[in-house]
């Protein structure tokens, strides 16, 4: 299997020689990344599709709100070719307009990557022609490259060496699409930083944003590898309580969604309370109620307001009950202290 697929990639190599040469010679042995790396992380309830919930208006509104918008963090320095700065004289109104447009550009950059289930493998055999067995020592890939066809809909079929004609599996599709319709930043062979042994090291260096950004560019959002990488990153952040790194980036929403989907929001709530973001905290609990409508919290939530909602969650479903209770108390005490001072 491995040998024949490598031959396949060499066939492809002929068609897009220059783009591929560098990468293929660089790590020949890794030409094939099998899909068997598959999904190890649980996605909670398999019967429900998280993407349907994720894209619903109310959930999107909550996620966008708790992400926040820090224009300076979003439009941080990106190393690129040097350009001369431009200087302009602006009136007060024009300055406001410029700031507004900068804010819009930053908002656009906060678009969240979809949170999806892993895609289903393709096993579509179109025809079996035993007569053709041994016609060549390598597989043939046929690709529809007509203009205007999206990568997802493109027709790609493979003729195996034993004569069967089948639809290309996802791995082959990704590589062929990258050959004929390349996306910038994506490389033919996935970077080694996504391998399990390197992933842990990169995460220990706190390069969360880099890891997630690069995964977005390299993989489709329903690729099992994308799901593995992002979920591991979220787990790592949750374990080390580094939530603030992702705040005001496009990944904060999916992270919150992942944690809520898997009942792991306790540490996130504690972190939010410590930072004095009680509104966000209440929003996360609301999100929890939307995602788990049959949970104890949801049943006891009627006509509760504000901080009471968080307390309800704490009593019913929290795993780190003691810690959460303590931080809620500390928050209330500080509130009381403030009101006394003002009075």
């Amino acid at each position, binding site marked *: 299997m491995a040998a024949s697929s490598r031959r396949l990639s060499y066939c492809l190599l002929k068609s897009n020689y220059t783009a591929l040469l560098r990468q293929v010679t*660089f790590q020949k042995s890794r030409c094939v990344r099998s899909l068997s790396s598959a999904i190890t992380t649980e996605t909670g309830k398999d019967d429900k599709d998280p*993407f349907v919930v994720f*894209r619903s208006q109310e959930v999107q509104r909550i996620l966008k709100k708790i992400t926040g918008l820090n224009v300076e963090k979003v439009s941080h320095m*990106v*190393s*690129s*070719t*040097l350009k001369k700065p431009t200087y302009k004289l602006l009136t007060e109104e024009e300055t406001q307009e410029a700031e507004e447009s900068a804010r819009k550009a930053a908002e656009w*950059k906060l*678009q969240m*990557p*979809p949170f*999806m289930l892993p895609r289903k493998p393709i096993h579509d055999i179109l025809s079996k022609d035993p007569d053709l067995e041994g016609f060549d020592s390598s597989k043939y890939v046929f690709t529809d490259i007509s203009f205007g066809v*999206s990568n*997802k809909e493109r027709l790609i079929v493979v003729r195996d060496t034993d004569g069967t004609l089948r639809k290309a599996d996802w791995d082959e599709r990704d590589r062929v699409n990258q050959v004929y319709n390349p*996306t*910038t*930043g994506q490389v033919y062979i996935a*970077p*080694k*930083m996504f391998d399990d042994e*390197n992933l842990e*090291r*990169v995460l220990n260096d706190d*390069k969360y944003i*880099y*890891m997630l*950004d*690069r995964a*977005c*560019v390299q993989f489709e*959002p*329903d690729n099992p590898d994308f799901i593995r990488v992002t979920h591991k990153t979220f787990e790592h952040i949750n374990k080390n309580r580094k939530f603030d790194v992702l705040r005001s980036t496009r990944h904060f929403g999916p992270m919150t969604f992942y944690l809520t989907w898997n009942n792991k929001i306790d540490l996130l709530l504690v972190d939010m309370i410590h930072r004095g973001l009680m509104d966000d905290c209440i929003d996360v609990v609301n999100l929890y109620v939307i995602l788990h409508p049959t949970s104890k919290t949801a049943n006891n939530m009627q006509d509760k307001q504000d901080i009471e909602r968080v307390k309800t969650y704490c009593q019913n479903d929290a795993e780190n009950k003691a810690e959460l209770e303590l931080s809620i108390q500390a928050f209330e005490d500080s509130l009381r202290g403030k009101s006394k001072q003002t009075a």
Partner: protein
Amino acid sequence: MSVNQLKSLVLSLCKIPLFSSQMRLQPSYRVSRHFTQSVRRLQDAEGETEVPAEVNEKQKRFEVDYETSIQYLDSKAYKQCYGDDPVWKLYRRNFKGQLAPKTRKTCIRANKISTGNPCPVCRDDHLLVDYRNVKLLNQFISPHTGQVLDSMDTGVCQKQQKKLILEIFRARDYGYLEDSVPFRQYNYKDYY
């Protein structure tokens, strides 16, 4: 806790002889080694007769592994020698005329330094260009553009420059170095 551990590690490194011979810890000796060696060779030639074998032994280049090189970049000896500057900062090339030609092909031939003014990477035998040696690689990347600095700016010989480019590529592949990532926009309708 980890900071303290690091501190104690560095301190202990400074106390014990870190590198194979104590002489190598003296930075001034190391960088100007090629001068002193030639001087010593002259002195030796005047007096003794049995010397040539010993000289050959000494001329053999010390080969570092990447772990030692990483330790060296954190060590006191390195700090004394280079300070906070990149290793190529104070290096000056020798050339005739006003326009500098391309840097030389290589400084090391047959495991010996074959030139009077070896490039900033070759002259210090404890510097190893390796994808895990992030501190060294970072000195050869422009902080503004993220590109590898040209050898005309750094004075590194062609052999080391090629190695630098390759190892920086590898470091980015392994996630040791960060690269600028283009923004990816999603069309949600593709996934419905």
